[in-house]
């Protein structure tokens, strides 16, 4: 059965690559939740917005997503920053269910605004050279996925570096660890939260740019991505950055496998079943603790 094994390997690799992009998406959520404790129910919607921007950048300005992602990341950083600073920061002291509902409202608004503006048709960005496959021995790797995964790794690495090495990054980690203590030491907590949300937005925007190479885009895609991000983040461990990436890969691979062995449309069930189990029995996640 060497052919089957190769087929399996291809599927696994494909899953890993997709999973890395998922991981970047989840990383954004992990940063937002890990620091500001905001349960960002609009996460998928923010990514969907970025995806539309990327699609139109490609359609009208011929900017391929790999280039467009730089200005898009910047724009979304600003967007996230101001969203947190102007709106969400007022909700920090409110019970978390209030925050949740505020973000839910935002999600509904964004999703339907997108529907109204762009219509229900699905779109994507087709780059011809991405349709080729790279050959690694007997294995076939989809070029588009490969590059997307590279970008995802790069962005994640940049994020990791920021948090480990920069001053602001360290301040943000301090904030996440101990909000009150950070305030006492003089850190401007609200500003740090805003930066975190900005970073989270950025990450998810970059992930979005990559996502349009992998999947079709519809205005209603947001909630599914939000839920996927939550599955990954919870399975990987809330607040753990490496957990988010690892979780992404895990979900990517299991979705790919589920698609291979069971009906492809049922693969969602697997993710949700996993989420239910993790929520019940290991809420701190399978893979990580705190970042």
């Amino acid at each position, binding site marked *: 059965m060497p052919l089957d094994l190769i087929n399996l390997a291809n599927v696994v690799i494909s899953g890993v690559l997709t999973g890395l992009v998922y991981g970047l998406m989840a990383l954004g959520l992990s940063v937002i939740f890990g620091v500001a404790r905001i349960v960002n129910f609009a996460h998928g919607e923010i990514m969907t917005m970025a995806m539309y921007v990327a699609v139109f950048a490609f359609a009208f300005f011929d900017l391929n997503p790999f280039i467009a992602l730089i200005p898009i990341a910047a724009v979304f950083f600003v967007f996230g920053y101001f969203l947190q600073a102007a709106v969400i920061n007022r909700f920090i002291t*409110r019970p978390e269910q209030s925050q949740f509902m505020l973000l*839910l*409202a935002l999600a509904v*608004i964004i999703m339907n605004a997108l*529907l109204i503006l762009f219509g229900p048709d699905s779109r994507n960005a087709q780059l011809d050279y991405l349709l080729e496959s790279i050959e690694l021995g007997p294995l076939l790797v989809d070029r588009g996925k490969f590059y997307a995964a590279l970008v995802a790794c790069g962005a994640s690495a940049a994020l990791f570096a920021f948090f480990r090495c920069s001053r602001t990054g360290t301040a943000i980690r301090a904030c996440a660890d101990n909000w009150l203590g950070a305030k006492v030491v003089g850190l401007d907590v609200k500003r740090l939260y805003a930066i975190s949300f900005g970073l989270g937005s950025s990450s998810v925007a970059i992930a979005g740019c990559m996502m349009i190479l992998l999947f079709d885009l519809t*205005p209603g895609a947001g909630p599914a991505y939000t839920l996927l991000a939550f599955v990954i983040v919870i399975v990987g461990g809330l607040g753990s950055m490496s957990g988010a990436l690892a979780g992404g890969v895990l979900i990517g691979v299991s979705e790919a496998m589920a698609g291979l062995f069971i009906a492809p*449309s049922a693969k969602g*069930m697997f993710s949700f079943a996993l*989420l239910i189990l993790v*929520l019940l029995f290991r809420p701190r996640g399978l893979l990580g603790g705190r970042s």
Partner: protein
Amino acid sequence: MNGRAIFLLASLGMVLGMLPFVANDYVLSVATLFLFFAYAGQAWNILMGFAGQLSLGHSVYLGLGAYAAAALHYHFGIGPWAGLWLSMTLCAALGAIIGALAFRYSVSGVHFTLLTIAVAEFMRIGFDHFTWIGGSAGLFLKVSQRNQIDLLNLRGTPAMFYYVILALAAAAFALSTWLLLRRPGYYWQAIRENEDAAQALGINIFRWKMLAIIISASMTSLGGVFLAFYYNNLFPEQVFHISRSIEIILGPIIGGMGTLFGPVLGAALLALLADGATEVLAATGWEIPGLKQLIYGIALFVVMTLLPHGVWPELARKLKVSK
């Protein structure tokens, strides 16, 4: 409840009771939808407004309840009045399972919410593959004759459906009132406000939370039965979708969670807003899908930022009426 409240309620009751005699079919359909959301909102409110557990997966009870009764009717010809018992039982059981697991394992707050979403999504995809009830292609009940009223099989005129949902909504209101003003209401609110203190006062947290979720689930299932027979078709993609869950919670949140009249007021406001907008648009000739949902989202956003306790508490104060 003070005299004013009773008077206002009675007036409202009269207006609603008379509606089919004066309104056209379109208004009646809007009113039916309003009453449906008032009903479902009340059911949800028991778990959230009273006991403080945010469920964003209530569509699962709608769907399960709808499919149970519809399947019995479709496959075995069993009428909805008998079928609803299966619906309620199944949903009560599902609610009990979710509750038992969640509350036993201390899944609360946002984790609980995510759990409820995951269960609903799981069921949605599952039912998409459940061929006995039609799978993703849907389940179609025989379309009703518009002018014959067959109450036993819930087939009939729009007015008939209107009165059925009116009765349900009224019953839900009465039940919520009865529960809120007695021990269950006190104990649930205590749990919502501060679990530790509630426990120290002798309240068995687990038992009371279970009661809340079971009642909420059973009530919501009846809403599902109504939906099945009102629309005559069911698709897992629609009835289990998270948008249904969101629609259910909009009324109580905008109107005021934890209050008796909040869900009703909220449902009414939303119905007026959204359908008013659609009407205006229809008059100008545009058709914008998604506008209704957008308005819902904006309304929710506005309420969360400006009136976090909902519209009703403020209004109640001005009208000098209690909850």
